[in-house]
């Protein structure tokens, strides 16, 4: 049976037979870069059409249904449209920052992809501070939003960017605390160790109710961090037209749009890795036959299945809940999520010390 790690090893062996170490390294970096960009483009296409279809069905509509079978090529047509559109820079804008901001957003998203394991033993970079790296880099994304809002020279953009700053700074805390819950249980920041610790059961099942609470806090916090409804204060169409990307058009707008969806994918991938076992198949206790059957499903299918389940969950939130006001948003974080996740972390620490988990 083929797997991603086999393909990667074969390519590595073939390249190291042909070239010396330096050139092998360079070619492998190039291949990885092309794969990442390809994955981004694919994710953009798939997630946009998924979002539009999910939203349509939840609102008793049909959604896009003209381009291709059941409208499945709609996002492809949109991409072509965005590529041929003019990318304007407003007169009063700070030109350097204005044109730099969308690329910063994309670069942050690309950096975040490095430590994620897409299948068993298939990772770009298995660093020993994996989770810390992810939480550190993900908070950089606010810089691109602030940059875009500031450089646009538009009050709506600036307001959206400022709101986004307040929001991301607050919600980083509870996202970090809920990630910390898993690190306490695993005792390691490395992604491969966290995945290996879930071979006999995912943390959401092994960790009893405290881990479920941590999971819920994590999902709420990352929904806020990716600036999606019900926490889309940064965009808030009805109040700020489009928030920080009001002045953007053409491909630069598309990059922001893409960065949002890629960020959603990445936070869901991290959530799937930490709480749902990443590429690990579902194993139930001592059911040998069931466990054996589950092992036959490739690990990449497990990973993408879990990630897309979480993405669906976040889309479900978006199309069900009304948007929060800025004061309600901050109250939810500081008065509810943060105290709860602190007490929860204390519980999980006690659980980890006393070995109460499975």
């Amino acid at each position, binding site marked *: 049976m083929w797997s991603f790690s086999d393909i990667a090893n074969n390519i590595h062996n073939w390249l190291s037979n042909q070239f010396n170490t330096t050139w092998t390294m360079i070619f492998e970096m190039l291949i990885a870069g092309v794969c990442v960009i390809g994955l981004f483009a694919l994710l953009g296409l798939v997630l946009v059409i998924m979002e539009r279809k*999910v939203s349509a*069905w*939840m*609102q*008793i*509509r*049909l959604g896009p*249904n003209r381009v291709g079978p059941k409208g499945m090529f709609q996002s492809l047509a949109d991409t072509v449209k965005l590529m041929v559109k003019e990318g304007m820079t407003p007169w009063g804008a700070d030109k350097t920052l204005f044109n730099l901001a969308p690329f910063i957003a994309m670069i942050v998203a690309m950096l975040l992809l490095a430590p994620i394991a897409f299948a068993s033993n298939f990772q770009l970079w298995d660093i020993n501070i994996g989770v810390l790296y992810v939480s550190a880099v993900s908070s950089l994304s606010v810089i691109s939003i602030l940059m875009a809002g500031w450089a646009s020279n538009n009050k709506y953009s600036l307001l959206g960017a400022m709101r986004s700053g307040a929001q991301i700074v607050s919600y980083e805390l509870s996202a970090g605390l809920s990630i910390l819950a898993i690190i306490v249980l695993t005792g390691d920041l490395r992604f491969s160790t966290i995945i290996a610790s879930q071979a006999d059961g995912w943390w959401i099942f092994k960790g009893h109710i405290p881990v479920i609470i941590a999971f819920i806090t994590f999902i709420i916090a990352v929904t806020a961090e990716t600036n999606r409804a019900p926490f889309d204060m940064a965009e808030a169409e009805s109040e700020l037209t489009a928030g920080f990307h009001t002045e953007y058009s053409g491909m630069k707008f598309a990059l922001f749009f893409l960065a949002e969806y890629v960020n959603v994918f990445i936070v869901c991938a991290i959530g799937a890795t930490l709480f749902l076992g990443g590429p690990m198949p579902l194993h139930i206790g001592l059911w040998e036959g069931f466990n054996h059957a589950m092992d036959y499903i490739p690990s990449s299918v497990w990973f993408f299945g879990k990630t897309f389940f979480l993405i669906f969950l976040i889309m*479900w*939130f978006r*199309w*069900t*809940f009304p948007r929060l006001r800025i004061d309600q948003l901050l109250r939810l974080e500081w008065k*509810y999520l943060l105290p*709860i996740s602190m007490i929860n972390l204390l519980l999980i620490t006690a659980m980890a010390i006393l070995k109460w988990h499975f």
Partner: protein
Amino acid sequence: MNAGKYIRDIWNGFTSLLKGMKRTGYYFTHHKEIITQQYPDNRNDLKLPERFKGEVVMPHNEKNEHRCTGCQACELACPNGSIKVIFKNELTPEGKKKKAIDKLVYHLELCTMCNLCVEACPSDAIKMAQTFEHSVFDRNKLTKILNKPESKIMDGVE
């Protein structure tokens, strides 16, 4: 804020959000609930709601007779003057003069589909039709005469 209220708040918020998700989840999995109509494609078998109102029409029977007595109730009921009744004098078989409608002019371009004229009509002469493809290049075409040429009032309608 006491601890009981704090926990109750969380619980209430959580359950009400779950209730909302249950509703949208139901719609997501039940595609038969979809109310969007693919209009130009299903033009021949459109399913319009019962109360959908497209324009005012005057039904005629097969002998080219309508039920309008010309009482002007519809003209008075209309809030924005979409209906005008123009009279003529007709001779009855006994040789008497009788007032009857010459034209019932209906301005579709002014009509707001409020249904007040239909409710005001004492003899059920006019009703709302469900046609809606009214777009024309000339605005004058929207001024319609509801009674057909040479039509008469039905026997027994006074």
